[in-house]
């Protein structure tokens, strides 16, 4: 190998680095370091003239490697690797020394920070001296995208990907797509009818030639890697052939068995054979085998007897479908925080204490009361309704610590729609704070308070209980400091949002992570909001965190754009910084094979380990376990690390 000629470029980052680190001193110290052929320092290395310096120096000084001492590699490693490539230097011969986030921003003493910056930069010089030029691994990929979850975020994502010409498989666990948005009456702040704006999208998703819709289906497991995931999907039997079913409803009429309707959130019952709601897609009946008397014709089979088109098939079996997809969009959505956890608010004990989605059904023209606000206990029109915000939210001691974001808005909408439905009714809202950040949101709340004369009380409700046929609400008005006792006909709890219960298991299957509250974790909270940390897996909608419809749609489109960007590439690029095996040293013990979480390692015919570069993600767990040192991570070998440690600890 020819002698190393490393260029070290020290960035001032304006004053961000220069204020605490003497960048000139860093450059001078590095100039003395063995193998360094060129040093410079500059205001902003990432600027065009800064990058130009790097490019020119590579050329003029025949540099064999570059260290840019500046910010985190997460920030500008790609920038300088591209610049090096432009100058004809292999991009894997460029390293970033992080002297901003890990040094100038966290220390105050200039001498100490400068000394540390020198040490950090030297470690990277030692590394890059031993780096090898590498070529990215190029891999072929399939042209399909999987979308998990058929709520509004998933529908939007599926439509966008399909519209750009790629195949989509849209998987939904429930018998119909539409998600929670299908349950809503009207949407804030415009008061659009929710189904009127959702149904056309549902129909479009079901008819789109590029979308294959799999309802009543679940993703069982996922293997593979970006561009080439293998997904197994379980399609549960509906026992009704959707192509034959003509929606006559005779089966439902004769079915003797009932259970609480999921769509109507338990306000009414549905039959064992049912259609979740009128606009359901696919528009076909589903036989719920848990509620059915028994699938054997001898037990009941009343539905099959009356089905003229012979659509009912008791012998339908679950199917396991295997699909190859390049990208996966996870849009699993939310579920309300369990209302039964709010015993202090009478939940489970007082029938007229309901959650926000139940109230949506009461308000909905297609709901069980035809849009009349009748309370569940006795069907009377509710004349006094109390709305309780932050039910289960913002209560780190007892419930969820976070703000569920949409409850302020939908509570104002509920109170307003209630006032429209029952003009002589009395609506009272208990709130802690009002959070109405969004286009037209604050105006909407102010309109509700001022024009609709809805009473807003600032304070927390302590207790709700039943007294005869009345519901009593105890609270405190924190503005006046007075205790308040209200009588109500109906109490609506603006329940906190939880990630859908299926999220955790699915995330494990996909090897993506969830944050502390169980919501899907994005790759970067600001700059990579729709990507997971696993390449080719994207997130969208309320499964990633509480959000409203416009945000869910935006994220659905954002995730789709990312997936399209991947699908449109001819070949995918995989980092070449993966494991290599020195066959001369490998003893074939196979320890590494068991260590690899990606099945990238195997023992070959010659009895030595072999690494599949496409599968290897470069974690290096096998390298640490290899007893002979035959397994090495390219550009992060044991010997590189040893040299880095030595200079990290040497005097400066």
């Amino acid at each position, binding site marked *: 190998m020819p002698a190393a000629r490393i260029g070290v470029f020290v960035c001032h980052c304006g004053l961000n680095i220069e204020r605490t680190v003497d960048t000139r001193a860093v450059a001078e110290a590095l100039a003395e370091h063995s193998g360094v052929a060129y040093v410079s320092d500059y205001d902003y290395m990432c600027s065009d003239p800064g990058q130009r310096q790097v490019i020119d120096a590579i050329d003029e000084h025949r540099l064999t490697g570059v260290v840019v001492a500046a910010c985190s590699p*997460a920030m500008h490693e790609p920038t300088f690797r591209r610049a090096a490539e432009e100058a004809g230097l292999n991009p894997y011969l460029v390293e970033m020394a992080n002297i901003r986030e*890990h040094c100038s*921003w*966290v220390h*105050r003493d200039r001498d100490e920070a400068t000394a540390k910056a020198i040490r950090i930069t030297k*470690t990277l010089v030692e590394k890059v001296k031993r780096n090898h030029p590498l070529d990215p691994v190029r891999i072929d990929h399939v042209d399909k995208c999987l979308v998990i979850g058929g709520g509004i975020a998933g529908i939007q994502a599926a439509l966008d990907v399909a519209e750009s010409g790629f195949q989509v498989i849209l998987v939904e666990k429930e018998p119909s797509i539409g998600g929670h948005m299908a349950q809503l009456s009207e949407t804030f702040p415009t008061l659009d009818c929710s189904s009127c704006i959702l149904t056309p999208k549902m129909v479009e998703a079901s008819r789109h030639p590029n979308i294959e819709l799999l309802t009543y289906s679940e993703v069982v497991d996922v293997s593979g890697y970006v561009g080439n995931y293998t997904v197994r999907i379980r399609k549960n039997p509906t026992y009704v052939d959707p192509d034959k079913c003509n929606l006559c409803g005779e089966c439902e009429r004769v079915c003797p068995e009932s259970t609480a309707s999921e769509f109507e959130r338990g306000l009414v019952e549905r039959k064992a054979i049912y259609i979740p709601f009128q606009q359901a897609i696919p528009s076909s009946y589903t036989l719920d085998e848990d509620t059915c008397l028994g699938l054997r014709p001898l037990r009941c089979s009343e539905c099959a007897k009356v089905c003229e088109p012979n659509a009912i098939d008791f012998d339908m079996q679950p199917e396991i479908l295997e699909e190859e997809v390049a990208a996966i969009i996870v849009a699993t959505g939310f579920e309300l925080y369990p209302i039964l956890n709010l015993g202090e608010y009478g939940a489970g004990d007082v029938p007229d204490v309901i959650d926000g989605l139940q109230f949506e059904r009461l308000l909905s023209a297609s709901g069980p009361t035809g849009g009349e606000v009748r309370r569940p206990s006795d069907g009377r029109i509710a004349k006094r309704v109390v709305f309780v915000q932050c039910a289960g939210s913002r209560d780190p001691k007892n419930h969820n610590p976070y703000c569920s974001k949409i409850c302020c808005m939908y509570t104002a909408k509920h109170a307003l729609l209630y006032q429209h439905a029952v003009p002589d009714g009395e609506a009272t809202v208990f709130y802690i704070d009002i959070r109405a950040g969004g286009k037209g949101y604050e105006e909407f709340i102010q309109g509700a308070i001022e024009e609709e004369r809805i009473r807003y009380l600032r304070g927390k409700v302590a207790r709700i209980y039943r007294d005869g046929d009345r519901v009593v609400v105890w609270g405190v008005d924190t503005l006046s400091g007075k205790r308040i006792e209200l009588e109500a006909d109906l109490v609506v709890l603006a329940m906190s949002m939880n990630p859908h219960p299926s999220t955790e298991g699915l995330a494990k299957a996909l090897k993506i992570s969830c944050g502390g509250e169980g919501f899907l974790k994005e790759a970067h909270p600001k700059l990579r909001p729709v990507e997971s940390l696993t390449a080719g897996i994207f997130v969208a909608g309320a499964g990633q965190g509480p959000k409203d419809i416009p945000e869910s749609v935006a994220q659905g489109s954002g995730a789709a754009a990312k997936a399209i960007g991947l699908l449109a590439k001819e070949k995918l690029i995989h980092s070449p910084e993966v494991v290599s095996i020195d066959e001369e040293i490998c003893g074939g013990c196979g320890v590494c094979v068991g260590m690899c979480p990606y099945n990238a390692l195997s023992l070959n015919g010659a009895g030595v380990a072999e690494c599949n570069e496409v599968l290897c993600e*470069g974690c290096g767990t096998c390298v640490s376990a290899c007893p002979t040192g035959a397994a090495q991570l390219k550009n992060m070998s044991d010997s590189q*690390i040893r040299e880095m*440690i030595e200079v990290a*600890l040497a005097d400066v």
Partner: protein
Amino acid sequence: MSDPTGPFEPKIVAFLCRWCSYAGADLAGVSRLEYPPNVVPMRVNCSGRVDAEMVLAALEKGADGVLIGGCHPGDCHYVSGNYKTRRRVALLQRALSEIGIDPQRVRLEWISASEGHKFQRTMTEFIERIRDLGPSPVLAATTKEATGHG
């Protein structure tokens, strides 16, 4: 900076996994959370890349303490690397105490990309701990040995 006559300043090497702890250290920076400058961070892809030899090499070359930062259990970007590190570090600590090195000189911490404060706290506490423990006996012993033979 290292004045042999001055007060003891611990030298610490931190191996930080790229996805969680290194990013947590970045967040500490972005949030301007101050901590003592005694540590030189090194980025590894996964805490599972950190083997006993690396830690021993650091101690041999004069580190007074070694910190390994990984993703929280269940959150490893590479599925399970952090579990392997946890076992390796436990074994290593036992071995260290048997050869007379305080196992507290090697510390494993789970620091996520969103835990800038935890990174600051961990660094501050660890540096203080090592300051209390005093200089590592390893370097002194190896130097003495070398002189003895030399």
